[in-house]
């Protein structure tokens, strides 16, 4: 039973990551590998703020802001659309720096809740910034090329992480201490319950948000038919930014949920993403409910596998990806693949 609850907690984490991955893929056709690294940065920032240091995430954001602003200036300059300048600066310079100010303030304060919020919010600008800087220039490439770019991006983020956060692992204070005893040999931590609760709430919000709100419909439209969406006036760049922003928010939440229960290193992100990815593939990268099922499977499978042989548990989880891919692709009618030349 303990294994089951442990597995469920991780399922919850993979579910949240899966939601973010599916969102980005469905809107932009990018398999967003750096998701885990963003989550890890938010966790590392929380750790830094807890020990009274300014989180190095500020440097990271600063770097991306600088590059993004320059790219915007370049493109505005080329089109001589100077009218766009104030809006662009607002979006790419002022807004991303707001969470940084919050973080600076939070580092000095003693409130853990404030720090958690700051850590989550710090992650949010990173998503759209990455999209603007590295993905938008190649937005028309094939899914495969985007995958490669995405992988390399994650390498870059991990490298920057090593540079600015250092190689040591951290673990933050649990948001909720203590546990409840459900039965004589089953003790569940509040942290575990919190994680599962957050995941469920987010899943419901997602479902409702995408079906009911206008923004949700806009995102859905862009995902189903990008050209059609453009024809009715929805700008793909805008939806991409929104999708990445929401996804980065999810990443921030994942980061602060995961850091009290696991030691986080600068390169822990990739493995997190890839395991959640197995769940997303079960959902075919399009269906949120199926992704939830997938996350459940992956989390529980991992927990039991780790009991059996902890060293090989990752190998088992990844090994499972191959038959899942085969089953998945067998279920979808395959159209003739694009001739690439």
């Amino acid at each position: 039973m303990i294994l089951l609850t442990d597995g469920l907690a991780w399922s919850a984490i993979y579910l949240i990551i899966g939601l973010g991955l599916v969102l980005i893929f469905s809107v932009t056709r990018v398999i967003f590998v750096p998701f885990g690294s963003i989550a890890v940065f938010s966790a590392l920032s929380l750790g830094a703020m807890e020990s009274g240091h300014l989180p190095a995430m500020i440097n990271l954001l600063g770097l991306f802001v600088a590059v993004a602003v320059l790219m915007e200036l370049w493109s505005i300059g080329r089109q001589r659309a100077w009218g766009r300048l104030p809006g662009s600066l607002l979006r790419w310079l002022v807004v991303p720096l707001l969470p940084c100010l919050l973080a600076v303030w939070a580092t000095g304060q003693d409130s853990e809740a404030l720090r958690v919020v700051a850590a989550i919010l710090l992650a949010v600008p990173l998503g759209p910034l990455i999209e603007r800087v590295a993905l938008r220039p190649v937005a028309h490439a094939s899914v495969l090329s985007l995958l490669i770019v995405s992988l390399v991006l994650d390498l870059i983020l991990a490298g920057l992480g090593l540079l600015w956060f250092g190689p040591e692992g951290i673990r933050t204070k649990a948001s909720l201490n203590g546990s409840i005893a459900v039965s004589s040999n089953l003790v569940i931590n509040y942290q575990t319950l919190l994680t599962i609760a957050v995941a469920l709430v987010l899943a419901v919000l997602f479902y409702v948000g995408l079906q009911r709100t206008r923004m949700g419909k806009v995102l859905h439209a862009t995902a189903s038919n990008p050209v059609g969406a453009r024809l009715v006036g929805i700008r793909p760049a805008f939806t991409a930014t929104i999708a990445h922003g929401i996804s980065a928010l999810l990443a921030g939440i994942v980061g602060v949920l995961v850091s009290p229960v696991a030691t986080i290193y600068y390169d822990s992100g990739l493995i997190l993403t890839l395991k959640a990815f197995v769940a997303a593939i079960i959902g075919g990268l399009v269906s949120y409910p199926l992704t939830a099922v997938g996350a459940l499977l992956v989390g529980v499978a991992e927990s039991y596998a780790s009991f059996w042989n902890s060293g090989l548990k990752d190998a088992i989880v990844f090994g499972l990806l191959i038959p899942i891919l085969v089953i998945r692709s067998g279920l979808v009618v395959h159209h003739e693949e694009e001739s690439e030349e």
Partner: protein
Amino acid sequence: MKQRIWKYAMPLLMLLLIVAVPQILGSFHVALLNDIGIAALVVIGLILVSGIGGALSFGQAAFVGIAAYTTAWLSTTQGLSPWAGLVLGLVLTCGSAWLIGGITMRLGGHYLALSTIAWGLAVPLVFANTHALGSHTGIDGIPPISLGPWALDASRTVFVLIWLVVLGGAWFAYNLLGSRVGRTIRALRGGKILMASFGSDAFRLRLTLFVLASAYATLAGWLYAHANRFVSHTPFSLHASIDYVFMMVVGGMSQLGSALLGSALYIGLNNFLQDVLPLVTDRGAQVNSLVFALLFLLILLRMPGGIGRPLSRLWTRLRPRAKAPVLPAPSRQLEQRSMPERGRSILNVQNATKRFGGLVAVNGVSFELKAGEIVGLIGPNGAGKSTMFNLLTGTLPLSDGTVSFMDEPTSGLTQRQIALRGVARTFQHVKLRPAMTVLENVALGAHARGHCGLWRGGLRMDREEEARIMAEAMRQLKRVGLADQAYELAGSLALGTQRLVEIARSLASDPVLIMLDEPAAGLRLLEKQALASLLDTLRSEGVTVLIVEHDMEFVMSLVDRLVVMNFGSKISEGRPDEVRADPQVQAAYLGSDA
């Protein structure tokens, strides 16, 4: 003359270098070159399967690891000779590649890449956690390779072996790409329907390439283990696989020479940065991988052809390149099949029906084709002609009814099997390989008439058959009147010319029946006339042709008989003048009030 000098001088020069270099350079640089050579081996295989074959693999380092650990384990704990390690390594590595590939090569695009990532992650994890393989510590004290009395235990001596293997591997790959199998490898990116149309199985070819790439990886792993005398799991991680992809991309994905270029660049740059970065920052080591990732990203975004492409253009300008490969004059022609006598029924369609869910695209159509005639299958847009075409070629399965070719029902046969029985086809959107010459494109058509496989192709033992295939291709080009453009790149031709090339390709397969899919689409008047006269000539030579077309004028003067479809059913059949006068046909094309 220049060709001959080039042919003999180059290998001699290389052999000289291989022997001389280790004597000149210091042991560190020799070790560096060894690393470059081993990496180049892996990248050659990667280029074959991913760069040219189109199946991107992020798992090559895992195969290198399997081979390295196999030979390490065998030669340390079992005390066997390194050569036994090589043999068993090949068996194990190629065997696992065959298994994995069998499962995953059917996946398309990014699913395939993802499965290789899964594989590339899982295998080194298994290494790191297997006690018998030393877990995180690895296996130490691996014996060196011995050639008889000489033990290759210093970098200088193993250098010779490594680079001989690299040169041999590159030679094999180069020959392979220029051979019969090589042409199909280069055609892989055209898609599996194209491949099936001349009798090649895309899945099996991809699987073969995957196993071949793993064989290269085996050689690399074997050499790595016995040159370094130590293995651990770190050099076979996913990161290493990504590095190999980097080397391939940097060098230029579809050029063989880029294997060497990419690995030299990567390892050399790494070394250079290691010396230079500490001068700039004292976090030099940590910036190293960052710099590489940045570089990779830059190249992906800005230089998709890699550095190799501009270099190879320079190379072709420098090197005297013969117009055609030098082939011996063939002793005889390719075997030809015996054609059915004129008037015999060769294609019999009985009540063919195709349903897509509730939509009936083809509804009980029946007609017959006799040898030596040209039949047109016409109808307005949406009549179901394309669906009918696909039913005949085997691209789509029948829902009901039968199609028989030469008295054999085609219902259980794949496209490829139908093509091998003598049905050739062209495509509505021309499917030529733009980077191959016209002659090579036509030679693809003769694929099924040749027999030399991977080994004969790679070892250059296929020259006689190649000569025959090329002669046949030239013959067909002459037939369609394009012999003077044989060595032009197919992508540079006008659309009408391309269609003629496709017809030549179909003819090269020595078909009983040629099926043309909207051949007149997009052609100018003069081109249409040329096409019509070619088809006329073919008919007089005994070729049976089925044309699916909706350009009435083109077919009217050309065909012997017409079959007219509308809304999935056959509405008329007969000679062109009969069909033209048929009121139902008129209503279909012009509307019922005409």
